[in-house]
């Protein structure tokens, strides 16, 4: 769920692709190559004295790692499904994992190798999208909530309806991403975020159309800029990114509205047909190891699903309600599961109508 500064990522992706190209030619050794496909800025990479996780793995397991990044689940899925790329490890989000399980695109995890997964917190040992974690091992998680500028918004907004408040006309940002946008409307109307009921979805579309009265600005990555300089007063976004924004602008605050919200999990999976099944399992186990997992979580600011990593974090981070909300907040949150194709199609058609009008 990380969509941080995709501009930069586009450049980095191009650079890493170029690097991958050149390394193809030079590596004549018999070392196996593990191909990893992850969100941008989603691993500790050695910047600013952090651990270079990829390099560590290459040394410990005597292999090469080809590391590439994507910026949306759909982009990753399209690339894999079209057969234009091959990867051994991918780190998609919950609903995409269930879609890929349904389409038989993932290998089961070998828990005889991935022993560090025993360290997962109890509530991450089984998930809605992948019962028993048969095909995926949680990597990070977080909630979606409302980021607001305390100097521009009176009081604490407690409802998603703040995004429909005409007092903030022209100062509201909205997801440019239909699943997240419909998720907010669904919560506001008291529906499930995984509704497949056409009437409910139509009602959400009407509500989102009604939002046009406050002239929302539909954005993804641009949100960082716009919230940090005070261009906008209110925006829905991911908790981990809210932490980043608040560190840039202390006037910002984050709240999970009372109607409830989305809790997402990004998890590590092995792609079906991999030639490096053993090494892929070792990679996942390595990523769950205390030192590595801690370096990653400190780097990316999202929440960890691993108990000992959580225990070792600074008290300041552990008590941060944005990153580690209490059970009361989590009980209001729902996670996405995959929707049937016709529901996705309906949502996408309605969404195009909303934003293209």
């Amino acid at each position: 769920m990380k969509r941080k500064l995709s501009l930069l990522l586009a450049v980095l992706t191009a650079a890493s692709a170029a690097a991958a190209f050149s390394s193809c030619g030079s590596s004549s050794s018999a070392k196996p190559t593990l191909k990893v496909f992850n969100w941008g800025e989603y691993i500790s990479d050695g910047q600013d004295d952090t651990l270079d996780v990829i390099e560590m793995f290459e040394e410990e397991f005597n292999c090469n790692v080809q590391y590439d990044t994507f910026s949306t689940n759909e982009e990753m899925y399209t690339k894999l499904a079209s057969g234009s790329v091959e990867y051994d490890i991918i780190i998609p989000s919950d609903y995409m994992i269930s879609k890929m399980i349904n389409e038989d695109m993932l290998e089961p995890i070998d828990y005889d190798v991935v022993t560090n997964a025993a360290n997962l917190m109890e509530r991450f040992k089984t998930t809605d999208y992948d019962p028993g974690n048969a095909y995926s091992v949680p990597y990070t998680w977080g909630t979606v909530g409302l980021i607001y500028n305390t100097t521009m918004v009176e009081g604490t907004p407690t409802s998603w309806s703040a995004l429909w408040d005409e007092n903030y006309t022209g100062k509201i940002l909205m997801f440019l991403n239909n699943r997240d946008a419909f998720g907010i409307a669904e919560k506001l109307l008291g529906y499930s975020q995984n509704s497949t009921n056409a009437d409910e979805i139509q009602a959400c579309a009407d509500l989102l159309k009604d939002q046009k009265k406050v002239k929302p600005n539909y954005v993804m990555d641009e949100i960082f800029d716009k919230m940090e300089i005070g261009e906008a007063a209110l925006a829905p976004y991911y908790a981990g990114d809210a932490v980043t924004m608040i560190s840039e602008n202390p006037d910002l605050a984050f709240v999970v509205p009372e109607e409830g919200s989305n809790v997402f999990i990004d998890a590590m999976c092995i792609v079906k047909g991999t030639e490096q099944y053993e090494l892929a399992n070792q990679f996942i186990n390595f990523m769950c190891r205390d030192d590595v997992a801690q370096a990653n979580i400190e780097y990316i600011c999202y929440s960890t699903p691993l108990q000992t990593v959580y225990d070792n974090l600074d008290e300041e981070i552990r008590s941060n309600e944005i990153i580690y909300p209490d059970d009361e907040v989590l009980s209001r949150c729902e996670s996405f599961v995959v929707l049937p194709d016709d529901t996705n199609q309906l949502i996408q058609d309605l969404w195009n109508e909303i934003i293209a009008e």
Partner: protein
Amino acid sequence: MAEQTRHRPFDMAKLTSVPYLVWMLLFTIVPLGMVVWYAFTAYPNTDFTLQNFAGVLKYGKTFWKSIYLSLIATVVCLIVGFPMGFIMSRMSERGQRTMQMLIMLPMWMSFLLRTYAWMTLLENEGLINKFLGLFGIGPFQMINTQGAIVLGMVYNYLPYMILPLYSVMVKIDQSVIEAAQDLGADGFHVLIRVILPLAVPGIVTGITMVFVPSVSTFIISRMLGGGSNLLIGDLIEQQFLGSVYNPGVGSAMSLILMVMILLIMGVINRFDSDEMEGMLV
């Protein structure tokens, strides 16, 4: 035998075009064929269908908006670029080189970054409104408007209008203009009767090179239009990277867009009957 030797250089010349022909086959003809294939098949099956085109129909308004905004941008580029091209063509050689450089300079930076920069300039809390605020004016709503999209198009594609115009106009001999003046033509008639007709190939190339990328852009409308002024390029992108993978409808949209561009180009090219020397592409 004599004839054969005369033919040989010609064959060699043909041979040198092979790398480009292979390139074109691989990266233009084959992808184009795939677009046509996807447009007429019901993905993931391979059955023939026209359903994809029916799916495009409801986006008629967006097609119209894309063409409308791109036409405005093209006209603005022409109005700004024509005098600029002429002034440049009358400069000293040194001046011409400097101007060429200045016009190309922004293109050395990433297109994405330049468009992103406009976003931060145009925002309500952006540099322009902050500056105006010093004098108590504004703030003006500039970002997230259709005007901002047109501005983005003009800014990004203006060089592609000026350069072909300049390259045609620089070939207009000063003595032709002087002859017209000697024969009693005033400034207006020199422009209408002499410069304009001679510049037609440049105008046609310029229009093509501004209109085509403008009508298919998706990043300018997304960054400067606030995501609620979607153009046809955005819709095509959605078909591939949105929540539904829909290559059929995406390809049908691309195909319709291509046909529309070809038709518009066909009309424009009629003005440029046999003068092709100004063509850069």
